[in-house]
């Protein structure tokens, strides 16, 4: 098992109380697996990402365990996590375009960062160059300041940097959101290359754009209102989802070749619940067309078929 998360709860502190941004996540990511994490804005996907790698106020750790390669990740302890960061677990952040120090040449910043983590850039230079070639960046970027690079260049540089020490798990947080479609494709494919060449063992790609995940992810996990709704192989999620929310999500995607005149785009009526004081039981209850009495009780995230997890009373677990 690469990553194993058990009942992870991380709340967001505000003056008005705790926002239950991540409320009980239990899932696994296997070695070599690229898992896509999707859901609407505010569903908790970025909270999950930050919990794994940088749990600082206003985020507050409540309970849960995370194991990476059999070792426990001390996510609540900022200092002890430093040993794991960059080497075992790494992230390409949402703000990748601003992630580099504006007054330092990229190469110098990399060298200083590596030195501070006990690595020597001179030893890593050949590998670094190979990776720059892979993402189609000229070696000259090391001699540039971030302001001299385009947005796409900066993003690719951060991708290379974050994966430089071959982490077990690489989290990619909304890295395609600000790009145009053709660049999105290129970047997504680069990510897969990273895994195929074993720069990283497994990946978590966070996005609200399921079409990207369809192209590159092995499995997709759908989140809703701070909780996990469904996790299955990409094919299953797209073609045969079982959670009511996932079904609505997939069917609301526009299809190529289908005109609005023929088939109108379907949205999902209603809005996600407030997480300051979330409703009891299943959080999708109010928007669900098949909700019934039992939905007042929170459905567990159980295995309904091989490697297919769903949290819905209508889809009982295999051993139910």
């Amino acid at each position: 098992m690469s990553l194993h998360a058990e009942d992870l709860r991380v709340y967001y502190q505000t003056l008005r109380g705790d926002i239950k941004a991540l409320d009980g996540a239990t899932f696994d990511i296997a070695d070599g697996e690229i898992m896509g994490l999707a859901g609407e804005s505010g569903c908790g996907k970025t909270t999950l990402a930050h919990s794994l790698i940088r749990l600082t106020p206003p985020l507050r750790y409540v309970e849960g365990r995370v194991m990476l390669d059999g070792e426990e990740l001390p996510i609540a302890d900022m200092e002890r996590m430093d040993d794991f960061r960059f080497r075992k677990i790494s992230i390409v952040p949402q703000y990748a375009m601003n992630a580099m120090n504006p007054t330092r040449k990229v190469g110098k910043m990399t060298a200083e960062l590596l030195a501070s983590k006990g690595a020597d850039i001179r030893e890593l230079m050949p590998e670094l160059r190979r990776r720059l070639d892979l993402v189609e960046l000229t070696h000259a970027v090391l001699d540039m300041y971030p302001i001299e690079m385009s947005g796409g260049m900066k993003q690719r540089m951060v991708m290379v940097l974050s994966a430089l020490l071959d982490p077990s798990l690489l989290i990619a947080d909304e890295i395609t959101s600000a790009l145009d479609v053709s660049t999105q494709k290129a970047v997504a494919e680069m990510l897969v290359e990273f895994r195929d060449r074993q720069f990283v063992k497994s990946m978590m790609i966070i996005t609200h754009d399921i079409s990207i995940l369809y192209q590159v992810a092995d499995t997709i996990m759908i989140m809703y209102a701070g909780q996990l709704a469904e996790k299955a192989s990409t094919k299953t999620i797209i073609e045969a989802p079982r959670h009511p929310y996932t079904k609505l999500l997939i069917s609301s995607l526009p299809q190529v070749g289908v005109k609005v005149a023929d088939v109108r785009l379907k949205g999902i009526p209603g809005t996600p619940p407030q997480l300051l004081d979330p409703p009891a039981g299943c959080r999708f209850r109010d928007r669900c067309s098949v909700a019934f009495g039992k939905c007042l009780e929170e459905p567990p995230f159980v295995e309904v078929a091989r490697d297919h997890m769903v949290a819905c009373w209508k889809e009982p677990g295999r051993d139910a």
Partner: protein
Amino acid sequence: MRRYFGRKILIYLLTFFLAVTIDWLIPRFMPGNPVQNMLSRVAVHPEAVEAMRGYFTRAFGLDVPVWQQYLNFWAALFHGDLGVSVYMFPQRVADIILRAVPYDVALLLPAILLSWLAGNKFGAYAARTKWLDNTVLPLGYTLTATPYMWLGIVLAWVFGIVLDVFPFAGAYSYDLSPHLSWRFVGDVLHHWFLPFASLFLVQFGGWAIGMRNMIIYELEADYSHYLEALGAPRNLIRNYAFRNALLPQLSGLALQLGVIVAGALVTEVVFSYPGIGYLLLAAIQNQDYFLIQGCFLFIIVFVLLANFAIDIIYVLVDPRTRRGMTGETA
């Protein structure tokens, strides 16, 4: 980089031109007549008064048409001729001012440099230690809100009179005349300390507060968060934050020069320190228009030169400006 300096130099030249024009303009369009004032101070026979009036008018170049006076002024400027003082007739204005300049340099240069460096250092420390922050913050706000002359007065009173450890008037003891000896140097330093301290403390407060806020701002920037996410040690993150925070502090120094000069002016008045500020005040009180003009000009030139120096230093410190990308447009 050429564009960066080009713009700056243009502004400085325009400012210089404007300042010189104002400098020349004001005495001539204000009530009062310098020659008349001079004459009224000397009770002389009426015929002699007329002769003297003619002489002085010619001596001060007031007998030619206005536009010619203006051009003469510029011409004289380039010859280093700032005219003759009325109050300290017949000394040349340029000479009087040049005698005062070393005192200003001795006061301002260390005060500005040390307060900027020390203030930034303390501000950086305050940004990361809670207990230090709780003391530096209120202290800094108090110091920066203190009027320069009041701090000078209080220091002079406490240390000069009550505790009697420092002298509080003049640049050196009245019974000494300038000569090179340890005794004299020590005496000068003794007199120099309180005015220096006064200037240093107020600025120090301002820089400490500014730096503290800048560092907090830098620590919240995306690049700091990224380094944290990659597990970089706090030293590296703080180092980057500090270096980046210094840049706006440097630009801020250029902007503060006018205020600092004003502070030096009043501090000299409080301590009777013979710098240009003290001179300017004496000139105003004695209505010596030419001395006023000269002092004003000197102050402007000093500020422009200082601004330019800081611009050069900024280019050296911010690597982006060298690449043609202006980080700061001060």
